[in-house]
């Protein structure tokens, strides 16, 4: 589904990714871990099309399409979804109307008939059970005055209604208390199936207790330095990032 080869990227001419390779198949859940500033969030933002980054080498193929040639909205319309670490507040625009606009923009781009408000109402209510939200949520302005946990749940609700093929979760676990974490994780688990894939970025192992990854990658200094199964996350938790950083240093040193 997603093939990233030798990806190099910069922000304001400073290199942030330096030759990253990654292969994600449908049906898989991947976790990207790494110390602060290693380029984890950068990676998902580049896949989603964030305008601040410049790709200087390498490429990203998504279901056979060169993603880098597409606008962010085109990527979204093709099933790429990113849950933001800091979701944007949109005062004055109700959550309901925003969700419907998004869903219909994606449907329209895929020549699927748009949902009218009544159809959408039924559709969204079903999805809301997944994130344990009540109706009041739909009538509030998008993310405005939401607590950290509510914002993250709202991101998962958007994921649920947009039904993406590739979900990029940028530190979705940060700032969550244990109950919110459980709800968010349950949502992610229920939404993932053999036809879609999840790439989640996290600093801590905590989320991975709830959403068990098929593969764990450790990102240091803009490169994946170690990949493994879910046990790698536990090893990292125990030994700390210095362990892989040292390994990385030795690897580089031997070059």
């Amino acid at each position: 589904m997603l093939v990233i080869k030798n990806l190099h990227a910069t922000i304001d001419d400073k290199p942030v990714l330096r030759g990253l390779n990654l292969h994600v198949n449908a049906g898989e859940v991947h976790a990207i871990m790494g110390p602060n500033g290693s380029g984890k969030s950068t990676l998902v933002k580049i896949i989603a099309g964030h305008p601040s980054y410049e790709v200087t080498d390498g490429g990203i193929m998504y279901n056979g399409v060169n993603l880098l040639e597409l606008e962010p909205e085109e990527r979204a319309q093709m099933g790429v979804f990113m849950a933001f670490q800091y979701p944007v507040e949109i005062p004055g625009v109700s959550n309901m109307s925003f969700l419907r606009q998004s869903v219909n923009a994606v449907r329209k781009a895929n020549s699927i008939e748009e949902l009218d408000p009544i159809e959408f109402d039924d559709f969204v209510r079903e999805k809301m059970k997944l994130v344990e939200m009540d109706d009041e949520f739909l009538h509030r302005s998008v993310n405005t005055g939401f607590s950290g946990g509510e914002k993250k749940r709202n991101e998962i609700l958007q994921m649920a209604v947009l039904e993406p093929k590739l979900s990029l979760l940028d530190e979705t676990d940060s700032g969550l208390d244990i109950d919110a974490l459980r709800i968010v994780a349950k949502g992610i688990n229920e939404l993932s199936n053999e036809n879609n894939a999840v790439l989640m970025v996290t600093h801590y192992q905590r989320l991975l207790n709830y959403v068990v990854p098929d593969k764990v990658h450790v990102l240091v200094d803009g490169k994946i330095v170690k990949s493994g199964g879910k046990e790698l996350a536990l090893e990292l938790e125990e030994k700390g990032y210095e362990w892989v950083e040292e390994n990385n240093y030795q690897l580089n040193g031997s070059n």
Partner: protein
Amino acid sequence: MVQTKGSRMDIFINSLLDKRSALGSESGLIASVRKSAEQSLSKLRSPQTNDEEWRFTNLKSIYRIEFDEVHSSDSTILFDRTNIPESEGAFITFVNGVIDSTLTDVSKVQAKVNIVQFSDATESESKTITTHLNTHMSHEDDVFLHLNSALLNDGIWLDIPKNVVLDTPIHIRFLNTSKATHASAPRVLVTAAEHSKAVIIEESVGYEESVYLNIPVLEFDLKRGAHVTHVKIQNDSKKAFHIGRVGATVARDGHYESYSIQLGAAISRNDVVATQSEEQMFATLDGLVLIGGDQLSDTHTLMDHRKAFGESHQLHKVLVDGQATSVFNGKIFVRQDAQKVNSYQENRNLLMSNEGTVHTKPQLEIFADDVKCSHGATIGQLVPEELFYLKSRGLDDRSSRELLTQAFALEVIEHIPVESVRDRLAHVVSEFAHHSVIEALTV
């Protein structure tokens, strides 16, 4: 002959005074209001751009107008009933500055509110009105306040008795329909007695091509526990000039909410003053300005905390398109006795084009030592991170820009307590966002 500074203004004032309609009697309320205003005016000098309060707003295009009349009674020309904004509950309409009884219907509130037309006021009513006029403004040297009084043709006094809660808003419309170049000086006084509650909507509308000067003055007196919401919608003709004044005095436990929406006029100036007269009160002085083309819109506000335990909030948002210019001066005075005041002011400006100009000046003067005051002013464009958020949800560039532009403005509107007004304004906002975004993307 040596021309002194401001002489053009004096000619301007005199020409307006000369064109006033004569009054039937020289002894009534209106005559006496006019007379004392003339005296005040004789001591005042015209505002010029070297006056601090008028630095960015040059009125010379107003001073140059040759007026045909003051308060045109010719309401038939350019009169299109379909253009009259939908009435909200009870309504009172001034057409070209003159109260029009055919467009006035207060039956829904008549039983609860005492509505007095200045020209019909009894001696005791006249006395009460006189004790209020000009006292809810702090600008004793305000030329336009006195000009309104000097040009007074008629006014409305809304007297809301003790404990009366109005569930119907009172909609006061200032329509300008005359083809003649004219001036209108409508006047309204609202006295809200103890624990009364009312929503007053003030709306100015003019017809596209008409040139006129609209100087409405509204004053509010809130007694203890009174709750008044004032929504001002200024949608004058794009060739007209609007110089409006709003003043409120708020007593203990009073609650004054003011929303000023500036949409029309070539040049508009809106001054809003709220004065805390007793301990413990609440006021909101919100504003929304949507301008484009060559429009200039200037808002000056003053929140005057004179006593302790006051709270005030202010959110003033401005959208500038085309070559338009916005001016904002927000004063907050916290006087020595006003301990424990909690006040904040936020001014945010969104530039939709490369040629717009924004002048903003928060002005906090704090003389008490135990207060909480904050302010912030920003001028900017749509934030790329926010645009990216919307695009990542599948919305295209244009829709994302429109939605964020709308959201910027809706933050002010969403608190207005009248749904039909909110809907009407939301529509104006979405049209404005639509056009300005398309323009920006085609440049």
